[in-house]
């Protein structure tokens, strides 16, 4: 997915949900549906990676905040 650099998580998630609904309606020709499905899998992988990265950052920041605090909660 070459455009992934500019794509936001929300855009990808929105498109993924649209694709799933389109597939579930089952009205598209088979070839086209297969293409949609592949696209959906790509979007899913992208969203998953973004979420994992975000969670990693949150935990990292939380750990750092915890460490920078003196044990008694008072300023040095």
């Amino acid at each position, binding site marked *: 997915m070459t455009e992934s650099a500019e794509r936001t998580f929300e855009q990808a*998630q929105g498109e993924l949900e649209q694709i*799933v609904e389109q597939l579930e309606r*089952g009205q598209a020709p*088979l070839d086209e549906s297969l293409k949609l*499905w592949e696209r*959906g899998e790509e979007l899913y992988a992208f969203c998953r990676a973004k*979420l994992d990265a*975000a969670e990693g950052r949150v935990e990292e920041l939380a750990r750092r905040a915890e460490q920078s605090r003196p044990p008694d909660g*008072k300023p040095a």
Partner: protein
Amino acid sequence: MAKVEALPYDDRTVYSVAAFNGGVGQWLSRLPTVWVEGEVTELRRHERWATVFFTLKDPADGSSVGVTMARGRFDALRLDLSDGERVHVFGRPELYEQRAEFKLRALTIERFGAGAHLASLERLKATLAAEGLFADERKRPLPFLPRRIGVVTGNDAAAKRDVVTTIRSRFPPASVLVAETYVQGPRAAAEIVAAIGALCEHPDVDVVVLTRGGGSFEDLLPFSDERVVRAVAECPVPVVSAVGHEQDTPLCDLAADVRASTPTAAGKLVVPELTELYGRLDRAHAGLARGVRRSLEHDRQRLARSADRLHAWPRAAVDREQHRLERTRDRLRLAPVLAVERKRAALENTGAKLVALSPLQTLERGYAIVRTESGDVAASAGDISVGERVDVTLAHGGIAARVEEVTE
């Protein structure tokens, strides 16, 4: 009283200095006795002097007049006056003729009593209120975290201890600058004004606490002094006033931005409680982490639902297509069979109709067909003659007969 004599000159009336002073003195001495109010300053009393001197000063604008009083009379009053005290002097104007010095000759002196103080306070209060000094819209909010807190208080006062202890216990890193002054007596007002001014010289003083513990009505008077009230109102930073007890309302309380009922209450007003600040910060911090985790979890679940449906799709799609294909195949196979069946049914239907229409069916019910010798079916009696031979067909078999009678 000596008569004022003019010096003899031709064309003008000329007086000696002594005569002039004497004349003015005589004229002044005819003025009535009056009460004059002011502050005692520069009191001079000596055992060797027959007269006591002091200057009576108007606290409002500094106007002054010299006062003289016979020492015996002064001592008899047992007033024990000191500089700065406010008094009412009953006397008349008098000229010290030797030097043309105008004096107020006191006949009696009364210390300014509580009643007089009250009346004077009410007047001052009304004047300052009319000027808008006590107006709500003048009140400024206190800073949330003052860089430095100025405290004006007595040097040994419990009030000072209460304010400083409260500030330090609530907010240990607080910076407090104490200006100690007289908080009662005649010199207090000017010192308090100076102390407020000195504190405000420090650019990082963001709030001033003016405090004094409880005391008598007279003790608290400096805090109603016009100079102090104006200094409080004009203070460049907000002022918290905590003077006397709950029921006392010195005028500086009205001019201050916030009035505190006690020194401890004043301390609570000027700084937040550090432990509570930390608590709030911790709660906000915890909430922050919780919030971002919850948001991530929400996104993750939403993505998982999409993924489940997406991953289920290929299997479902293939199943659906297979099913559709099988149905088509079944229909394909059934088609010829159905076609034959349909034709057979149509044929049977036709056959049944054929049978229903056959004359044999009629014969079965007992009818017979009569044919003449020529082979024609006889439909009426006139077609047949007596003695003629006819063939009769029955449902089963037939007979040949000869006609015996014909009925038309």
